[in-house]
Structures are given as structure tokens and as C-alpha cells.
């Protein structure tokens, strides 16, 4: 067994899995609350990456240091993407709240196509280079022969964000409202929870996480275009289903499992079948645990 090769694959799988997890959280939170698969979520991630690119380019030309650029780019991307997430919900989903479940789904697909084309027309259809804005601490540079320092930063950021999210959902009042709405919307409303407001907050948080993912992956792979949201969105959605859609730890776990599967599949078998491994795992898990790894199965009363 070649341990350093194993470690390399593990690291790249974990890095990719972290990004999947960040985006998957948005899918899972929205699904948990309004049982809607928000197909436009991938596009929010893509918009986050574009906003960060523009911000970083401006800030770098102003001569700010790397750390400040990184933090500010994330901040602007988060604000911008959250605004988009909020608006998308208000325009495309809220009017359809009481329609059949298929209507908002179609509305979501439409929103996704609209946002893709909007960015393509307003920015460019080509790939654009993304600056390397992830700051790497000194001590990590020393071990860069063994692990990819940028990957480590991505994993750490993801872990921190997830802990913050769990605390937010568990400890704050809004978090409590979110859990209540997820369990039973009508009951929550009767108990005085502002359901509309809570749903908006969920979209805003999901979009913020997607934006962070967008900035990280943009800086990691060095290029973005209008289509990255679709591909990442598809994988992240798979991760959310894998982990159990509606469950926050499930999304994190699903992302990591998916990333590692792809990485090890490529490394030990063949990259020709990278996507095949991802979906074989999905099928296998859904056969044995139909609700996903950490999902709770709801038996519907007839």
C-alpha cells in the first residue's frame, strides 16, 4: 500500500467533498423546510464566484494584501448571493407556495436557466481566470510536499462554517424557528413563528454558504464560467440525497463521501468512470437506506 498516494487522493477527495458539502447544505436546508429542490442553487454558487472574481480584481488593483482581499471577496460574494437567493425565493417560489409540488420545481429549473443565461450575456460565455486569493499560512507552506495547503485551507473553512451553522440552527431563536417550520409549517405558524420570514432566512443562509463554496472553488481551480453552477449543483444535489435530504449533518457527510468516492475511484480504478462511481454509490446507498445515510424515513399515513 502506497500511503502517500492514498493520502494525496484522500486530501483531494476531501477538498472536493468539502465544496460539495457547502453547496449541498443549501439544497438540504431548503428541502427540509419547504420540500422544494431549489435547482437555481447551483447558479447562486456561480454568481458568488463571479462577484468574488470582480471584487478580488478591483481590490487587488487597489493594492490590498491577500488576506484582506480574500475576506472582503467572500464578504461581498456572500452579501450579493444572499440577495439573489432572497429575491429568487420571493419571485419564483413564494407565489407558488400553495401550488402543487411540481410547479415550484419547474419554476426552479426556469430560474436556473435564466440565471445561467443572464451571467453568460452580461459577463462572458468563455472561461475567465480566477485569481489565487486563498491565503496560505506560513506553517502550511512547509508541509506542501505532503499536502496541498490550499486544500487544507478549504477544508478548515468548511469545517468552521459547518460548526457555526449547526450552532446557529441549534442555539438561536431563528434556528429554533427553522426547525419548527421544518417539522410542521402550520403548527409553527399557530405558535407565532413568522414562516415566510423563516423561509427567507433559510434561502439567505443557503445562498451565503454556496457563495463561500463558489469563492473557494474558483480560487482552487483558477477558472470559472457561467456553467460551473450546473455541474457543481448536480453533484451537490447528489451529495444531499446521499446523506439524506433535509438533514444538515447528512449533507456534510454526503459531500465528503461523494468527494472521496470520486477521488479514490479515479486514483485506484480509472478516471474514465469518475461519474459512474459517484452514482453507483448513490444507487447502492439508496437501495439499502432509501432516505439516505442520515435521513429519517417518514412513513406516510394512508
Amino acid at each position: 500500500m502506497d500511503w502517500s498516494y492514498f493520502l494525496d487522493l484522500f486530501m483531494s477527495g476531501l477538498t472536493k467533498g468539502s465544496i460539495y458539502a457547502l453547496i449541498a447544505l443549501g439544497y438540504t436546508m431548503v428541502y427540509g423546510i419547504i420540500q422544494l429542490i431549489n435547482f437555481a442553487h447551483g447558479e447562486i454558487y456561480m454568481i458568488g464566484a463571479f462577484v468574488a472574481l470582480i471584487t478580488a480584481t478591483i481590490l487587488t488593483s487597489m493594492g490590498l494584501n491577500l488576506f484582506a482581499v480574500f475576506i472582503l471577496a467572500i464578504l461581498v460574494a456572500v452579501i450579493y448571493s444572499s440577495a439573489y437567493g432572497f429575491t429568487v425565493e420571493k419571485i419564483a417560489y413564494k407565489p407558488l407556495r400553495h401550488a402543487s409540488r411540481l410547479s415550484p420545481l419547474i419554476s426552479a429549473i426556469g430560474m436556473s436557466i435564466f440565471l445561467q443565461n443572464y451571467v453568460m450575456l452580461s459577463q462572458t460565455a468563455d472561461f475567465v481566470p480566477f485569481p489565487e486569493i486563498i491565503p496560505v499560512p506560513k506553517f502550511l507552506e512547509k508541509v506542501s510536499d505532503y499536502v496541498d495547503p490550499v486544500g487544507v485551507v478549504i477544508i478548515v473553512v468548511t469545517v468552521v462554517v459547518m460548526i457555526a451553522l449547526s450552532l446557529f440552527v441549534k442555539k438561536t431563536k431563528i434556528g429554533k424557528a427553522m426547525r419548527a417550520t421544518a417539522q410542521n409549517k402550520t403548527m409553527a405558524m399557530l405558535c407565532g413563528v413568522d414562516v415566510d420570514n423563516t423561509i427567507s432566512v433559510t434561502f439567505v443562509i443557503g445562498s451565503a454558504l454556496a457563495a463561500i463554496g463558489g469563492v473557494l472553488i474558483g480560487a482552487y481551480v483558477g477558472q470559472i464560467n457561467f456553467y460551473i453552477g450546473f455541474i457543481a449543483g448536480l453533484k451537490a444535489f447528489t451529495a444531499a440525497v446521499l446523506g439524506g435530504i433535509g438533514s444538515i449533518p447528512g449533507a456534510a457527510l454526503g459531500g465528503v463521501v461523494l468527494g472521496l468516492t470520486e477521488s479514490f475511484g479515479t486514483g485506484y480504478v480509472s478516471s474514465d468512470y469518475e461519474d459512474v462511481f459517484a452514482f453507483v454509490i448513490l444507487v447502492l446507498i439508496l437501495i439499502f437506506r432509501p432516505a439516505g445515510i442520515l435521513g429519517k424515513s417518514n412513513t406516510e399515513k394512508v
Partner: protein
Amino acid sequence: MKKIFGLLSAALFTVLAVVAPSFAADVIKIGVAGVHTGDLAPFGIPTVHAAKIVAEKYNKEGGLLGKKIELIVLDEQCKPEVATNVATSLVTSKVVGVIGHICSGATKAALPIYKQDKIPVISPSATNPSLTKIGYPVFFRTIAPDNAQGKLQEEFIVNKLHAKRVAIIHDKGDYGKGLATYLKNYIEKSGKAKVVLFEGITPGAMDYSAVVQKIKRARPDVVMFGGYHPEASKIAMTMKRKRLKMPFISDDGIKNDKFIQVAGKYAEGVYASGPKDVSGNPLYKVALNEHKKKYGTEPGAFYYNAYAATQALFEAIKKAGTTDFAKVTHALRTNYVETPLGKIKFDKKGEAEGVGFAVYQVKNGKFVQVYAPSK
């Protein structure tokens, strides 16, 4: 009403049939077939422009064999089924040669018809290697076939970079995988180097760090990628980040400014094969200026190849002194012609000698030609 239309069109048709032959005597008809409408039109229109410019030039000097040249331009939309109709139509209008077709698929479909009636066909753009076999002896082309690029890369990798272990990655697409397979076969046939890794990647995937780890483990002397620039720039970047210092070579799909722009500093030192740089040829500049003068724009794809094809056909007819098939094709195969692509003639199979690929390298943010076979 329908009857009247039928009668009318029948009457018109008869008139045409009667009138047409009386013109035929004093013109030489040349067919120009390709895609002129739809998505792929940018690949076909420049050929029409080139043929028109060259024909006009010859007509000004008295035409060919004392007759005016008349172009019959037909659109086949790159569709094989339309291409056979177009070919039949050209054959029935008694063309003595055809410039085209543009797409390999359409060319393949049309060739048997030209073969039956012995009409020389010169394509500026159809690169499928099998065409010269299917179309022999009527088919010629002024562009190098797909496998020529693989052959050149093999020569460069084995003889110039002295690589013993080669890793080949491709994007699973027709172009990328096709080229990668040619290269693999040529390397294995040469026996001088070993292919240590041959893998496809998913185009558009988030990142390729896992496959780069795999490359690292295979310890190649050279990495080749068959595909286009978005994936190539990601791989080149990840390789340098992981401190893989072996040369990275790719194909015509990355030999553009976009690759350099996206990959930035990571593009430096990357090799790419692409058509030979012919912009230094005096005739290249002449052809460029003629296009600018007539159409007011820079010429598009395959313009110079089509220009050379038209020239080659006209010169062959001139040299042969007749439009007889055997004599014209003999002239095509033996008589050198000065064209924008350089001095060319065709070999026995119908490939243009002296037209081909070269290897470029990114130096200071620009692709610079570093290796071109002398032949």
C-alpha cells in the same frame, strides 16, 4: 391551381434545360460545395470567398484554357444526405472539379458520386484520415489529416524531448480521444517509449487533482492531453501546483490566446501542436489583402487552405491543357504550386505535401513555433 403551377414549372424547367447547354461550351464549371448556412456556416463561407477571389483573378487574366471560369456554389449544411444530392447536382451540371466539401462526414457521403464520374475533389478542411482511402483517386486535400498531428507529437516527444515514459490523458471526446489514440499507437509502434497512463477525464468537472495524483504516481517524462483549453488549463495548473515539472503537451484545441489568458503564468512552457505557421509566406499576405479588399474583414476558418485548393486545381488544369481527369490529377500529383500555405503538390494518396503541423511552446505569454518537420 396546382395544375397550373405544375405546368408552369415544367415549362420553366424545359426552358432551362434548353438554354443551359448553349452556355456550357465557353465556360469551365467548378463546383464549390460545403456548409453555407446554419451553425457551421463560419467553417464553409470562407471557402466560398476564397474560390470567388481566385476565380476572379484567373478570369481577369483570360480564364482557363481560353474559357471563363464559372463557380457553382451549393450548400449541403454539412449533412451527408444533402451532400449526396449536391454532388449529384454538380455532376449533372458537368463540373470539371470540386472545391469541398467542408465536413468529413459530408465529404465521405459525397465521394462515391464523384468517384463514379471521375471528378477531382479538393477539400480545404475534411481531416478524417480514411477519406484519402475512400476517395482515391479523385480525392485531394490541402489540410493535414487528423493522424498527422499524432504522428508529429510522437516524433517530438520521442526524438526531441527524449521521453521514455509518456502519460496520455484525453477528454473522451471525438477529437481529444481520437488524437490521444493515434499518439498512443504511434508511440507503441515506435518501440522507443512506453505509454504509462492512458485515461479519459470528464470535461467540465470541478477539478482534476485526483487524476494529476495518478499522473504523478506513473512517473512519466512527458504528459500529453488530447482535448480543449478549459480542461488543459486546469490540468496544467494543478500539475504545477503539485510540483510536477515534466513537459506538458497538448493539441490544436488549446493553441489559442484563450488558453494563455486562462492559465496565466501556468501556461508558460506548455507545448501545443497546431497547423504550421505560414503567415510569413508572401502569398499569404496577398490572399489576406485580397479578402480584406473584397469583403472588408479578416478571412475566416480554412480560407487559406481553400485558396490553395482552388489555385492547385486551376494550375493543374492549366498545366494539363485539358480538363481530362487523368491528366488533371497527374498534374495535381506532380506539379508544384505556390500557394499561401507554401509550395505544395499532392502525394500519391492525395495528401498535400508540405502542409502539416508544427509544435509550439508558450514563451512569455505567446505561442512560439519550436519544432516543424522539414518535409
